[in-house]
């Protein structure tokens, strides 16, 4: 008889799983967590074999691998909460663009190294704060244990991204210009990470997710410190923020990404290793 394999968290009692009132919002929120990790992980993996130096190539591949690991945990839990028998793979490979809940920031094309690193930095600075809060405070034990696991890895991502932002920002004239251009491009997308809606409110009321305003204040402080050190200037966008990804309204870039990422399941439905 083959060994039964029990997925993570199966032995952990969680009052929020099976809570019918919270279910739709909880599922949406978990998809946002999982989709941010999945789409950024895929974008990051596009560098595999194309990095400017071997060490960066390896670092990016490792970062992407961590993010795909986080995706399996978040989307796995999303499927459980939804209760319709969908696995993490089903959610990743069998949904179309409008069903994805990632922020627009992570789906933008990978660009040059400056765009890749600046995006990772802006995202990681938020991701690190969010996971820290979840690991310590989330009233859902399943959410807290996933966050605690992911946090250790994201600490390394943030450490590396911050270091490179400073070295390239405060580097040569060309590296500085490219980093500034990347910041100008990406800054108007960063605000979506903190733009709350009814899903965020429901999760915050349930004690599962943090207050996004406080998160933004902490993020601002951390990001401004590093950008100052990197001699980079935050562009004046008049407070404008691109929104919509969290609700499924995406840029044209996501469809192309999915066409590649989901190719196998679309060409050979149900194929497995």
């Amino acid at each position, binding site marked *: *008889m083959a*060994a039964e394999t029990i997925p993570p968290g199966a032995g952990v009692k969680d009052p929020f799983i099976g809570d019918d009132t919270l279910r739709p919002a909880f599922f949406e929120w978990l998809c946002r967590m999982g989709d941010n990790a999945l789409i950024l992980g895929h974008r990051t993996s596009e560098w595999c074999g194309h990095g400017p130096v071997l060490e960066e190539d390896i*670092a990016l591949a*490792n970062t992407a*691998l961590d993010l795909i690991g986080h995706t399996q*945990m978040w989307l796995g839990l999303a499927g459980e909460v939804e209760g319709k028998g969908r696995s993490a793979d089903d959610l990743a490979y069998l949904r179309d663009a409008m069903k994805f809940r990632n922020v627009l920031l992570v789906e933008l094309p990978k660009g040059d190294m400056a765009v890749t690193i600046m995006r990772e930095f802006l995202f990681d600075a938020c991701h690190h704060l969010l996971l820290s809060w979840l690991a310590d405070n989330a009233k859902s034990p399943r959410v807290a244990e996933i966050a605690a696991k992911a946090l*250790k*890895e994201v*600490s390394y991502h943030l450490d*590396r991204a911050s270091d490179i932002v400073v070295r390239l920002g405060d580097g040569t004239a060309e590296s500085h210009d490219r980093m500034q251009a990347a910041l100008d491009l990406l800054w108007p997308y960063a605000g979506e990470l903190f733009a709350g809606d009814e899903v965020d409110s429901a999760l915050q009321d349930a004690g599962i997710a943090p207050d996004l305003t406080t998160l933004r204040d902490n993020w601002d402080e951390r990001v401004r410190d590093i950008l100052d050190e990197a001699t980079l200037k935050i562009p004046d966008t008049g407070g404008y923020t691109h929104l919509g990804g969290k609700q499924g309204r995406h840029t044209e870039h996501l469809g192309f990404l999915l066409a590649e990422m989901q190719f196998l399941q679309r060409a050979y439905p149900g194929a497995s290793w």
Partner: protein
Amino acid sequence: MKTALQPATEEVWTWLAEVPDPEIPVVSVTELGIVRDVRYDGDTLVVAVTPTYSGCPATAVIDLMIEDKLREMGVENLRLERRLAPPWTTDWVTDEARDKLRSFGIAPPIDGTATDGMSAKAARLSGETNLVVACPRCNSANTERISQFGSTPCKAAWRCKDCLEPFDYFKCI
């Protein structure tokens, strides 16, 4: 009808101590600290395993190798549990394993530097002056980090400035 002999959990631990990590075969899964529990649920042997890194591709292979070993030792009813909490830390890597890693050419993790909260940023701002990684080849402390990431998720790339050899450092989490 219950006919299968139940080996003692202590004995199961000694079998598991012979299962090598697939990527760093010089250490066993128990020495890495990823086997968290061995117990019986009725007549089913339950082994709880925690992943090192959440995306580590070796995780599924480790499950298979554990199952193979236990089958070989005659275990019939087996359940493998994937456990997330508490998350794996390099503090669980045993002293013997640290010596084995060093002789294998991998600098072992340094105790007490597991990352938490702001420590990664603190390490960066301090230029990591608090972290001395000795070269596993010549034992020199005159080393430098090439990259925070290495050939597997659990390792970073370092270089010795005395013997000039690059080496892997089993980074702390």
